[in-house]
């Protein structure tokens, strides 16, 4: 009996000590997932998610304190990619798949105030004071900062449409629509 108790005690001591040492030696600094998530974010620090920048949002995601659907510019595609990354089974069906949008300036309404220029995180709006502004489509991320800043409502977000260069074959309808 004493023998058995001794063996258990010994095992406990040895394993406890071993685990303590292992915990010290194999400690992982920081959270590698957060860095990987940050890679996936748009990187414009637009702030629409409510976090101060993409890196803070990534940290919140990694900690599980933010929903994967937090990033409007990333849209549904980013949300499902994040869900995959974090191993979360998430119902994104309610999330509108708005596709990608880009800003468009109504020339009639633009007064050339340059407010949008200053807000754009990617310098995608060109123009100067008292001149009608234009959007560089390729640089626009659809973050809507400019639309918010515009005092005359001259900026709207428009879905990016297919062109001959960007069109590709749609996926065949999942079999047997009948």
């Amino acid at each position, binding site marked *: 009996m004493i023998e058995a108790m001794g063996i258990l005690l010994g095992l406990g001591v040895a394993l406890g000590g071993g685990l303590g040492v292992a915990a010290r030696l194999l400690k992982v600094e920081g959270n590698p997932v957060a860095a990987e998530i940050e890679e996936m974010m*748009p*990187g*414009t*620090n637009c702030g629409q998610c409510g976090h101060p920048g993409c890196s803070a949002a990534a940290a919140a995601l990694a900690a599980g304190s933010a929903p994967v659907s937090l990033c409007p510019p990333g849209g549904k595609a980013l949300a499902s990619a994040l869900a995959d990354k974090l191993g979360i089974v998430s119902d994104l069906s309610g999330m509108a798949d708005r596709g*990608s949008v880009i800003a468009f300036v109504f020339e009639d309404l633009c007064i050339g105030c340059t407010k949008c220029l200053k807000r*754009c*995180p*990617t*310098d*995608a709006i060109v123009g100067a004071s008292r001149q009608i502004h234009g959007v560089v489509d*390729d*640089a626009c*991320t659809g973050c809507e900062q400019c639309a918010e800043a515009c005092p005359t409502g001259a900026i709207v977000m428009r879905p990016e449409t*297919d*062109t*001959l260069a*960007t*069109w*590709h*074959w*749609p*996926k*065949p309808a*999942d*079999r*047997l629509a*009948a």
Partner: protein
Amino acid sequence: MKLFRISGGIHPKESKELSADRPIERLPLASVLRIPLQQHIGGPAVAVVDKGDAVKKGQILAVGRGMVSAPVHAPTSGRIVSIGRFVAPHASGLPGQTITMRPDGRDEWGELPAPIDAFGVDPAVIAERVAASGIVGMGGATFPSAVKLNLRNRHKLDTLVINAAECEPYLTCDDRLMRERTAEVVDGVRIMRHGLGVGRAIVAVEANKPAALAALRLAVAAGGFADVTVVEVPTRYPMGSEKHLVQTLTGQETPARALTADIGIVVHNVATAFAVYEAVRLGRPLIARIVTVSGGAITRPGNFEVPIGTPVSHLVEQCGGFRGTPERLLLGGPMMGQPLASTRASIVKGVNGVLALAAAEAPTGPIMPCIRCASCVAACPCGLAPFDMAARIRKEELDGAVRIGLLDCIACGSCAWVCPANIPLVQYFNYAKGKLTAEQRTKHKQEETKRLAKFRADRLEQQRKAKEEAMARMKAEREAKKRQAEAAARVEVEG
């Protein structure tokens, strides 16, 4: 000549008899011609004429932009009506930049470049003329031909292969061209051989075109051309695939992700050879091509020499219109041709056929689940497992599909043709390839965005710093001034 076997492949119903005996006809000009600026792979051409300009036949309308591009010429004389977006001859039916002209009916040639003494000049001169004439691969690939001729600069080449297999069912335009303009074709082949800087040319024709074979052989023998060999290759789809044709002729497989030029061979289409003949010998740019109009829903099938820019509707009208409602309307052959969104779209340089298929000719069976019969594996000329790739794509596992060879697929359609379940395999592959490209584009854009965002942040930071420095400097100056003033005052006091 010893031929080699290729694996896979199919024997679809040829249906060439509908138009094979119809000689090439010229049709009345359409009342309006719409000439897309992108008729080739590469950068679109840029218009050099304006709305309202009068142009002569053969006059340049738009110039190529970039290394891989091709110019566009006026198919006839007339007036430019507009330059703008118009429905493109493309499956999507989306609009593309198009020059619209109204022919004046006089069909007057403009000033043409002088003919070239084909065999007396440097090969570079021929390539230059081919480029200036706007010649692109006319088998459907539409790759600028001059770029391919210039491969001699970077690769060690030994053979020019002329692809006259015409393995697509229904199409007979190359067949008719070889039979009716044999001498010109052979001359074009020899010019290209010279332009490519190689010693021999092989013209490969499928066995189902005996008349064309005989005509070519006669012309070669009559001319005593030792540098041209006419070869009969077996009738088997997709014999016209460039890599498979080369393997049939030489036994050599082109390595994956490489060009046939890597094994010393360049392949050109036979219709391209004719265009090269016209450009070099007559100075005429590529402004018309032979098109087969066929299919069970066409009243009068035939082969026609069609000016580039002719609306499909005009062509169909001239053939007596549709017989019943066509089930499918296609540009090109039934295997790899593209569905046509609108008959208002025009004939362009790469269109070798207009098909209107009746319901009995098109696949209409219901799409069933895959039963893994592996017919597609046996039919695939590229050694792929199409059913597996499609299953992965269906589940959006695009990377998985790439791993098992999606990018090695030539979209020949053999797999879908044999599929007992009528699964649209090719569309799955096209979708996946397109989606991957789009993803690449998005990723590129995202990187670009990050760069821009960082650039802006740095700039703001710099501005802030500059401002601070300026403030500090101003402050220092102010203080210095103050000190000076004080010192001066002191001096004054002391003084």
